[in-house]
């Protein structure tokens, strides 16, 4: 994702809010706008509006200002939790131990012990991850970890 100026950042935030707010009860946190590092967090509990929560969509992003004053994405965590099945699928980009900036996935399914703590993944945007997650939820499909390759992280 290219760096975002203030207006583009707020537009993207508004788009994400509109999408998640149509899915479930939404909480948003935006911290650090006045400084050089910023955290954006979204938590949507679906279906919301008085019904028992079936799924959680937790998205967090951390940004740092670049030389032009725009916001550059430094790391992210995009998590989908299927509460009904006790399963989780997540796409992350952050440091793991001494390794910086590791793009990876997490996958937990109750009927299969995790083959690894981390799986290989490619970089993706929040809305790309969300599209995959929400399709699983809407189609009532279980999270399937079998197609993922373990990532060895020393």
């Amino acid at each position, binding site marked *: 994702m290219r760096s975002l100026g203030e207006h583009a950042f707020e537009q993207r935030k508004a788009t994400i*809010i*509109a*999408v*998640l*707010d*149509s*899915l*479930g*009860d*939404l*909480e*948003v*946190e*935006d*911290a*650090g*706008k*006045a*400084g050089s*590092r*910023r*955290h954006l967090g979204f938590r949507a509990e*679906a*279906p*919301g*509006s008085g*019904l*028992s*929560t*079936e799924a*959680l969509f*937790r998205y*967090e992003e*951390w940004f*740092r200002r670049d030389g032009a004053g725009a916001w550059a994405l*430094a*790391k992210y*965590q995009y*998590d989908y*939790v299927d*509460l*009904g*099945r*006790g*399963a*989780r699928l997540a796409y*992350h980009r*952050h*440091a*793991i*131990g001494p390794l910086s900036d590791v793009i990876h996935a*997490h996958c*937990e399914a*109750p009927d299969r012990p995790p083959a690894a703590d981390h799986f290989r993944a490619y970089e993706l945007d929040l809305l790309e991850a969300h599209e995959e997650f*929400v*399709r699983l*939820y*809407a*189609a009532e499909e279980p999270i399937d970890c079998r197609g993922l390759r373990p990532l060895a992280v020393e």
Partner: protein
Amino acid sequence: MLDLTKPFYSPAEVAELAGVHPSTILNYIHAGRLYAVRLSERTYRIPRRAVLKLLAPESVRPPRIVEFPEADVELETGDHEQPTPRAVRA
């Protein structure tokens, strides 16, 4: 007061609730007026909350948005893993 108990609805179901033709609901979706998850070329699933926002917007609590512009944000910490919530049985 709408009594919606399912997490998702089809365009036909929403059309019946709204008292309009299903094509109207599809038009709303394509115009971005109604959020829907597209499962295939012809299959949409509309979240309950989106249905409520369309038919009874006064009943929907707006998102809670908090801002801390002066907060000092840490970037250097690594994993922010949170434990997976245990399954919730209805």
